[in-house]
């Protein structure tokens, strides 16, 4: 196995001694932007924006909850899209993107449920209610966890990807059907009592929400790139192990030609 790398790439970084991590100039810039946005978000969200007339300071939880929830759905959608592309193109990059998006989706999904319940307790006086949006969000989280579970248990590289991509492909359609049916189910019993979010947010509060979305989006993108590279590295390690295994296998063949009776365990 040779470690020869592309000369054009190494020249630029020659003296910098390429560090062994998943960062690059692009992610550093993105990371700094994300940090700046995070700082702004904290200032706007916790300090500069006024409390809501009805919700009081609890509105500040929404500056976390809403961006995180949107990113959760974005992660799930991205998983489905990447799975579809993998099934069509079979290029390993799409597979890596699907894992990365799904794992980020699970993290942001957990946060969505967590911040949602924390907001729900003082607002509705309960951590959980059988609202359509809550129920379908929880189900999506379970589906994503199942997706990752399948990825983890299958030992063969390509088999695991095929299984997982079909599961990933079904993910978003499932969410749509689940959401649609749950929405209809709840609207029978109570006329949408808990979905008052939109009307009262304006002015500085709207700015805070927007800054939150920008900051969340930047963090998500930065993290996605890093997680994607981790998945990519996993594929590379697998490939290198494979090369080594092929070499070892051939060597075993050369050795045992002399004595064909040798029986490797």
């Amino acid at each position: 196995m040779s470690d020869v790398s592309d000369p054009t790439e190494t020249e630029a970084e020659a003296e910098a001694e390429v560090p062994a991590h998943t960062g690059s100039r692009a992610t550093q810039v993105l990371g700094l932007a994300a940090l700046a946005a995070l700082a702004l978000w904290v200032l706007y969200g916790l300090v500069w924006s006024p409390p809501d007339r009805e919700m009081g300071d609890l509105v500040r939880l929404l500056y976390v909850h809403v961006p995180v929830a949107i990113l959760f759905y974005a992660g799930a959608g991205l998983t489905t899209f990447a799975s579809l592309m993998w099934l069509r193109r079979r290029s390993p990059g799409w597979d890596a993107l699907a894992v990365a998006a799904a794992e980020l989706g699970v993290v942001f999904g957990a946060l969505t449920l967590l911040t949602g319940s924390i907001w729900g307790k003082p607002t509705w006086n309960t951590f959980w209610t059988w609202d359509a949006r809550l129920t379908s969000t929880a189900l999506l989280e379970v589906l994503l966890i199942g997706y990752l579970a399948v990825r983890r248990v299958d030992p063969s590289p390509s088999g695991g990807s095929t299984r997982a991509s079909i599961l990933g492909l079904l993910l978003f359609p499932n969410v749509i059907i689940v959401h649609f049916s749950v929405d209809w189910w709840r609207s029978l019993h109570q006329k949408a009592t808990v979905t008052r979010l939109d009307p009262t947010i304006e002015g500085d509060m709207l700015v805070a929400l927007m800054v939150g979305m920008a900051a969340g989006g930047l963090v998500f993108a930065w993290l996605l790139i890093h997680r994607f590279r981790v998945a990519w590295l996993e594929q590379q390690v697998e490939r290198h192990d494979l090369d080594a295994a092929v070499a070892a296998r051939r060597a075993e063949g050369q050795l045992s030609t002399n004595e064909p009776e040798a029986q490797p365990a």
Partner: protein
Amino acid sequence: MWRDVALVAGRDLRIELRSRVATNQVAPFALLVLILFAFALDPDTGVLESATPGLYWIVVLFSGTLAVSRSGSVDEADGVRDALRLSGLAPAAVFLGKAAAVVAQLLVLELVLVGAVGVLYDAPLAGFPLMTATCLAATVAIAATGVLYSGLVAGLRVRDTLLPLLLLPVLAPVLIGATRAFEDAFGADGIRGWEWCGLVVLFAVVYVVAGCLAYGALLEG
């Protein structure tokens, strides 16, 4: 194509006829759960009666998971997967055949369970056209989704535990729709049962199509 579907369905049903897993294990399990619900929800307070449609479909869903799991394990025997891949059967035909066999078993089970809730829960059985249509649609939906997902976990050591985790959340809309339709059939007010039945039909169509398209890739995986 349809000849192959019939061939595979016939094989699965014949295996069921010989091994009697559905009749000797799944059906008694379903009845047992119905009885356990009666212990958990006091029959005298009327809770049981109002919850009957939901309980009925929960039992069908769990039994369906067992039936689907069994249907998948039939093909886990040594060398069968290879033989299936070599056989020249279209993957979609294998999928439809297996799903059809599960549908046949579940329909019989549902008939038994309808009788059981009528007797044990004193359910006000009525609205038979709606009930029949819902049963048909929901059974196709459960079987198609189940066979597709059991193909997804085929060959894994943890397939029996993973299958319910993947399958049950996906089937939530079927549970909701079929339950509402039954409530309407049993005479509850203000529920448009036929529309709920339509939702279940839509779900069934989506999963039959998805299964036909995806099963080939799963057999390879």
